[in-house]
């Protein structure tokens, strides 16, 4: 809090986002401590002047400290993908427990002892668990995170990779995120016309007509009546990247003039400064007197800049096309119109004027007194206006457009002025052409604001002070009914309230920001995105994702990758779950039909943790089936990762065919060895009995325990190989959910690699010498590999036909029941 200040100005951009320096004075102008003039804040910068004051708060009690406490006190909820995986685990557990309990009861009914029944129960529940799935999901997310890192999007939290894909609302900060956070000259008014300047970061925009003499005078005044200068040793750097000593507006003018008219320093050296009156808030202008470069002319040049209305008052003539003309009403009118228009664009406008002081009154060597003004400051010649704005970043309008077409709502939340906020929102596309706020409609129809039907206004701009008075229902109402919203003059606490409001409506919210004032919102959001280069460390810490090159367009990349990985995880889970049925059914039939065990535990693990891993992970490399950026964001309540339809396909349809394939191979091998299927039913007790060494088969041959077991383990190996063979078909059909495989193509090389490796591993496990002792897996005769081929082909044909029906009848029964 200040007791004394002298031309003291602070830059509050790290706290409120305002790029304009604010002047501070000892007067209490406002009740709100953030608005009043006699308080300065911890972590803001002083840009000019001196002041003396007393410290009123320290540490956690400062505004900054309170934001920090707010941020660290927030608990982050679960990410959407974590919720989906939890839901999926519930489904799997449900099925496992159901099967387990059913067969437990069945086992009891069939006469097994309690202990045996409990062992069966445990065995079935364990067989239901897809062991390799956790590794697969983690690897898929990691691959996506790596891909995003290549595009300069650093993801700090692995699950956040998918969250952007589910996002339905983006709340974006303005200063530094949507804008470049440097004041730039945007428009000029001279010769009775508004000219546009180039505000792009790399000077790629259109240039204006510089031929007019008025422009030369204007440039001269702007360059001379200016105390900013480039810091030393930067001649090699491009002009826009150089550091400037001076305030924001003067730096903007300096850079603009340097770009258009060449070295300002040289110009200043040629026109030496003799006296100056610096800017002060009472006069609202700045004035300096120079010697002209023309050595024959001994007159002094007086140049002046400041608030346009003050400058106009001091002027009696105006320069048009290089010639001085007396000021008339018409010109004053057009001046007013230009000023209104530029002000309405949210830009900061400055007026410029000059005059040549008459030689007789002010001869060479005249002592100009700046404290007690002894020279003329009226009857000057008005030249023109220049207006400045913090321009939007180049990639932002495009990115906002793409987010819009992807169905994502973009809201601007800033601490800056409503008018500037609205102007930038229009420039960026958050408020699109043709959409009006209630104030716009009122102005257009010339009726008071209260008479405008709120339903007509699709856009709205809400001030922070109004936000305080809104109840939760009113807030929900606004968020629901307006598609384009701008919140201005919001405090960090209010940003948090806005994010909570959106989340209450069921949206998944992304917040982008760069300053300390954004950090509570960044933490509370489902995903927080911070700027990497210009962001503060606090915001980078609170965020889940960092844009390493400050490119807002990377958010579009994030959305695309997020949606893609969600689809690919579905395919991967469908693939992995399918092999559960051919793993469980042998056990069930073993219990119920008393046949020798068709598939052992070690072979189950060889499938889940061995051969199925690479194909499941390879599905993460699949390309998108249709344009994912044209879809609406998924509804977190209805569009689940794993739903009943996926389970129905995986367990009920494809899984069953796979189980039949395995049993076919099993029966073929036993039949070739002499045990016809009819002989097998009920043989279990004798088969597993070590003491029975003369078990007779269908042909009367007698088998010892060891001989029988070798055949049984050969059957296990064959069942395992059959699962591998049908999983070839499964991975090919899981590649696509809607398109035919012929449309999608086999360009996923990792998938083909997976197929080769899977088969190589299966062959290795079967044929390697020593496997019969180590894992009890025996070499298979070549003909037995082909047992499962017809079923594999059947799976492929079945699913292609299903997808064909799905494409031909959108919305039909096939789609409703089987499209996952």
């Amino acid at each position: 809090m200040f007791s004394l200040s002298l031309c003291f100005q602070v830059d509050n951009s790290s706290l409120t986002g305002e790029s304009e320096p604010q002047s501070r004075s000892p007067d209490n102008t406002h009740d709100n401590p953030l608005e009043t003039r006699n308080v300065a804040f911890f972590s803001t910068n002083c840009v000019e002047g001196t002041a003396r004051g007393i410290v009123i708060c320290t540490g956690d009690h400062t505004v900054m400290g309170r934001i920090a406490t707010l941020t660290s006190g927030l608990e982050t909820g679960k990410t959407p993908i974590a919720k989906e995986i939890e839901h999926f685990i519930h489904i799997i557990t449900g099925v496992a427990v159901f099967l387990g309990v059913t067969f437990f009861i069945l086992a009891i009914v069939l006469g097994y002892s309690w202990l045996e029944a409990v062992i069966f129960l445990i065995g079935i529940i364990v067989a239901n668990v897809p062991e390799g799935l956790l590794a697969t999901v983690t690897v898929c997310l990691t691959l996506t995170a790596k891909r995003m890192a290549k595009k300069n999007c650093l993801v700090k939290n692995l699950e956040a990779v998918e969250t952007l894909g589910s996002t339905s609302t983006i709340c974006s900060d303005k200063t530094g995120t949507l804008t470049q956070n440097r004041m730039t000259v945007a428009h000029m008014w001279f010769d009775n016309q508004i000219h546009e300047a180039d505000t792009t970061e790399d000077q790629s925009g259109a240039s204006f007509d510089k031929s007019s003499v008025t422009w030369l005078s204007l440039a001269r005044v702007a360059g001379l009546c200016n105390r900013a200068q480039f810091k030393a040793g930067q001649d090699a750097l491009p002009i826009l990247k150089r550091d400037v000593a001076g305030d924001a507006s003067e730096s903007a003018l300096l850079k603009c003039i340097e770009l258009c008219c060449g070295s300002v320093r040289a110009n200043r050296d040629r026109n030496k400064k003799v006296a100056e009156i610096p800017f002060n808030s009472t006069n609202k202008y700045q004035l300096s007197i120079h010697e002209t470069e023309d050595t024959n002319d001994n007159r002094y040049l007086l140049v002046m800049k400041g608030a346009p209305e003050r400058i106009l008052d001091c002027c009696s003539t105006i320069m048009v096309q290089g010639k001085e003309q007396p000021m008339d009403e018409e010109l004053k009118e057009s001046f007013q119109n230009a000023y209104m228009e530029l002000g309405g664009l949210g830009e900061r406008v400055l007026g410029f004027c000059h005059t040549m002081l008459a030689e007789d009154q002010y001869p060479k060597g005249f002592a100009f007194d700046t404290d007690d003004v002894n020279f003329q400051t009226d009857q000057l010649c008005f030249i023109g206006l220049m207006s400045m704005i913090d321009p939007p970043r180049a990639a932002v309008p495009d990115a906002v457009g793409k987010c819009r077409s992807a169905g994502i709502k973009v809201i601007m939340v800033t601490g800056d002025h409503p008018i500037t906020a609205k102007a930038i929102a229009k420039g960026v596309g958050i408020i699109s052409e043709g959409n009006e706020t209630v104030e716009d409609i009122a102005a257009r129809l010339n009726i008071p604001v209260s008479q405008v039907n709120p339903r007509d206004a699709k856009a709205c701009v809400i001030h922070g002070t109004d936000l305080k008075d809104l109840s939760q229902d009113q807030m929900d109402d606004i968020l629901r009914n307006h598609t384009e919203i701008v919140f201005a003059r919001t405090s960090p606490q209010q940003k948090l309230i806005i994010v909570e409001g959106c989340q209450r409506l069921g949206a998944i919210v992304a917040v982008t920001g760069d300053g300390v004032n954004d950090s509570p919102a960044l933490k509370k959001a489902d995903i927080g995105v911070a700027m990497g280069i210009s962001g503060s460390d606090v915001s980078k810490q609170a965020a889940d994702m960092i844009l390493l090159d400050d490119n807002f367009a990377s958010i579009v990349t994030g959305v695309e990758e997020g949606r893609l990985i969600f689809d690919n995880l579905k395919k991967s889970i469908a693939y992995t779950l399918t092999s559960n049925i051919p793993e469980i059914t042998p056990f069930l039939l073993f219990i119920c039909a008393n046949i020798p065990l068709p598939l052992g535990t070690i072979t189950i693990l060889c499938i889940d943790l061995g051969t199925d891993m690479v194909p499941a992970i390879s599905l993460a490399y699949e390309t998108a089936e249709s344009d994912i950026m044209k879809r609406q964001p998924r509804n977190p309540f209805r569009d689940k990762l794993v739903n009943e339809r996926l389970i129905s396909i995986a367990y009920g349809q494809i899984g069953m065919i796979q189980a039949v394939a395995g049993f076919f191979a099993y029966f073929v091998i036993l039949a070739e060895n002499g045990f016809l299927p009819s002989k097998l039913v009920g043989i279990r007790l004798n088969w597993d009995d070590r003491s029975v060494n003369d078990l007779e088969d269908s042909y009367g041959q007698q088998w010892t325990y060891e001989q029988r077991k070798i055949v049984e383990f050969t059957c296990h190996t064959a069942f395992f190989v059959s699962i591998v063979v049908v999983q070839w078909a499964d991975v090919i059909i899981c590649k696509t959910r809607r398109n035919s495989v012929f449309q999608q193509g086999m360009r996923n090389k990792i998938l083909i690699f997976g197929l080769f490796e899977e088969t190589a591993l299966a062959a290795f496990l079967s044929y390697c010498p020593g496997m019969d002792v180590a894992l009890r897996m025996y070499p298979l005769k070549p003909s037995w590999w082909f047992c499962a081929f017809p079923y594999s082909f059947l799976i492929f044909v079945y699913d292609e036909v299903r997808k064909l029906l799905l494409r031909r009848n959108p919305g039909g029964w096939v789609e409703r029941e089987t499209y996952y």
Partner: protein
Amino acid sequence: MDLVTLVVFGSWLAPALGSAFGREVIASAENADKDYDSPFEYDYESLRIGGLVFAVVLFVLGIVLIVTKKCSCSSDKPRPKAPDEETAVPIAQ
């Protein structure tokens, strides 16, 4: 005399019958026995070698596929990807 023959024959038979693996190779001088047993003989050694060669070939092929940047030559009838699922005509089998 008969007892001696029986004992000799029995001692020949015992180790053969007690073999742990399912291949009952009866080392009999009689050709008839050999013919009866031939359906039960299978060359597992060649099978193992053949199988292992197959596994190694596939493995190496997979690695080569990943390492080279060219399009794979064993892909399944690749066709240009349809731009839009609504306009694509499903290719009937």
